[in-house]
């Protein structure tokens, strides 16, 4: 009972986190590529409830930032110009999760602009870029994990079920892929693909690269399950009644692999999101101006940004709740798939 509740809680947490990113257009006040050239590197605006006379306002407000005289990137709050936050306002048009056209935003400040996470070099709103960047990074992670599992599943099933030379060849190949440090592998595969491509192609390129790197582990796990499943009595009986290979795999053997695939998915997705971040951070992934969690951070490679504009670091922390959610989900799934091993698992295995 507790186990089931744990799973439900983690699924709920992850669902909420993903819903925020999917509805990025609604939660983000602006378009992620819209520039505000007059306000580069503006620090995050603080939300206030108390004004300068210590009066409490129920509606949170921010103070307009003014450039400090004689400087180009130092801002000071102007206490004479409070700007109240308005909720559910019409603003820049966007497409909800890429499809539904809409104009409604969670908050806005009328005609003035409000930057809760600051702005970057072009005065683009970091909060909006963070939310929309999440769409790119998470989708890359999800698709990459999906393809990896598909490849690993097929290879593992073929190797385990048919055995013989197919098993030998495929598993030796898997060992090669497992042996290499994964980032070197990622680099090597990326190195041999075209460099300058448009964002959409780059995105699918990354998904393909990430998917090609990690298939070996799921393949080995699936192979192990298939190996033991095909020797079960009821499978042999079905074979004796003349069931075809395809029927046996589909009806009796592959369903046993699903729970492992699910657990692997929960483990792989955050790693793959991180892989996308790493590639984009290094400039090998999704290019500007399309935001992704990786290329948002690549600004930090400039020393001046690192020294002066600490809020550019905030996107790095966006991944933490997602990691936490997936980690919890993976351990809940593991417990569910293997209740008898809880004793050992509580001693602490991978997750």
């Amino acid at each position, binding site marked *: 009972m507790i186990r089931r509740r744990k799973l439900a809680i983690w699924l709920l947490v992850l669902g909420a986190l993903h819903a925020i990113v999917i509805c990025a257009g609604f939660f983000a006040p602006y378009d992620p590529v819209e520039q505000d050239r007059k306000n580069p590197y503006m620090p995050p605006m603080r939300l206030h409830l108390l004004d300068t006379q210590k009066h409490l306002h129920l509606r949170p407000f921010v103070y307009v930032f003014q450039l400090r005289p004689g400087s180009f990137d130092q801002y000071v709050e102007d206490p004479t110009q409070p700007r109240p936050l308005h909720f559910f306002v019409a603003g820049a048009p966007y497409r909800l999760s890429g499809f539904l056209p809409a104009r409604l935003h969670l908050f806005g400040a009328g005609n003035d602009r409000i930057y809760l996470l600051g702005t970057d070099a072009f005065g683009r709103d970091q909060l909006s870029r963070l939310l929309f960047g999440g769409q790119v990074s998470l989708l890359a992670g999800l698709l990459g994990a999906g393809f990896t599992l598909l490849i690993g599943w097929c290879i593992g099933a073929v190797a385990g079920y048919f055995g013989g030379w197919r098993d030998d060849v495929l598993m*030796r190949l898997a*060992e*090669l892929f497992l*042996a*290499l*440090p*994964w*980032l*070197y*592998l990622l*680099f*090597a*595969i*990326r*190195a*041999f*693909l*075209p*460099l300058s491509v448009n964002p959409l192609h780059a995105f699918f390129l990354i998904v393909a690269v990430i998917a090609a790197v990690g298939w070996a582990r799921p393949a080995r796990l699936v192979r192990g399950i298939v190996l033991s499943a095909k020797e079960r009595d009821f499978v042999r009986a079905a074979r004796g009644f003349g069931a075809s290979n395809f029927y046996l795999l589909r009806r009796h053997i592959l369903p046993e692999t699903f729970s492992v695939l699910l657990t692997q998915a929960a483990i792989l997705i955050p790693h793959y999101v*991180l892989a996308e*971040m*790493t590639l984009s*951070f*290094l*400039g*090998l992934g999704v290019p500007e101006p399309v935001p992704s969690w*990786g290329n948002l*951070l690549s600004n*930090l*490679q400039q*020393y001046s940004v*690192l*020294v002066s504009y*600490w809020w550019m*670091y905030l996107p*790095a*922390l966006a*991944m*933490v709740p997602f*990691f*936490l959610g997936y*980690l919890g989900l993976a351990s809940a799934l593991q417990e569910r798939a293997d209740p008898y091993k809880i004793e*050992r698992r509580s*001693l*602490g*295995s*991978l*997750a």
Partner: protein
Amino acid sequence: MMRYLLRRLAHALLLILGVSVLAFLFAALAPGNYFDEMRLNPQIAPETLTALRVQYELDRPLPLRYASWVNSVLHGQMGFSFAYNSPVAPLLLVRAKNTLLLTVTATLLAWAIALPLGVWSAERLGLLPDRVISWGTATLLVIPDLALALGLLVLAVRTHRFPTGGMVSLDSQSLSAAGKIRDLAAHMALPVAALVLSSLPLLVRHVRAAVAEVLQAPFLLAAEGHGIPRLTLLFRYALLAAANPLLSLFGFSIGALLSGSLLIEVVMSWPGLGPFLLEAILARDIYVVIGGVLFSTIFLAAGNFLADMFLYWLDPRIRAESAPR
């Protein structure tokens, strides 16, 4: 002994061979090459390009190219870097040394911290120290490598405690020998800290699990009954009995640290394989990329080989298994 050693060595060599073939296949499938950019330059005649392609043997079929590359590896060259106009091996060696310095230090430090923490945690299973350590490792586990490295960098910049890039200070030439070492250590502090912190949680958890399993064994109860001191019991007997899974983890941790180091070198501008490889990828300098991958495989194979040897020396069960009958 010899047989076991030879078998592990053959395994390592096969791994290296397999990786090199795989890397070459990928490279062959790749569209474009180093000279493609020049095609757009009107000042370079197509004949020149053809001549260059012939000179660098890009026009020959793949098996021949692979054979001549293997030949150059055996002669200590590892192919030719187009961008540097020089054999790859010496270029890589300089960087690989720096990477190795970083990874070896981080590996040793991470294990030196993980072993006592894991053993302590296993000994107090479910008690306060165990819970604190579990929470600590869980926290570290959910912080991505990239965020950790950048976070350390931001902290260093804001506190001005540590140098934030490179390997030596500008004035390092004028320092004394001790000063040079101190300077190097200061530069290593941040990247090593990032590597150690990112690999620590997994190690601690595995040490804890392995030792906790061993601690339930009857022979340890008997040893305790004999009055052997707790510390001796834990580190001399329990840890030794748990060595097998931990030493395979050691090989794995080297791989993880090499990967981590690749990224952290770029973030912290450490002059190792990471930035060099990135530059080579951007320039399509394929032999450098293949060489870098090969180097990492060699490190990894060497690490695994060392772990195997260590296990052979440590664990009588392995010796008995591989003894000639």
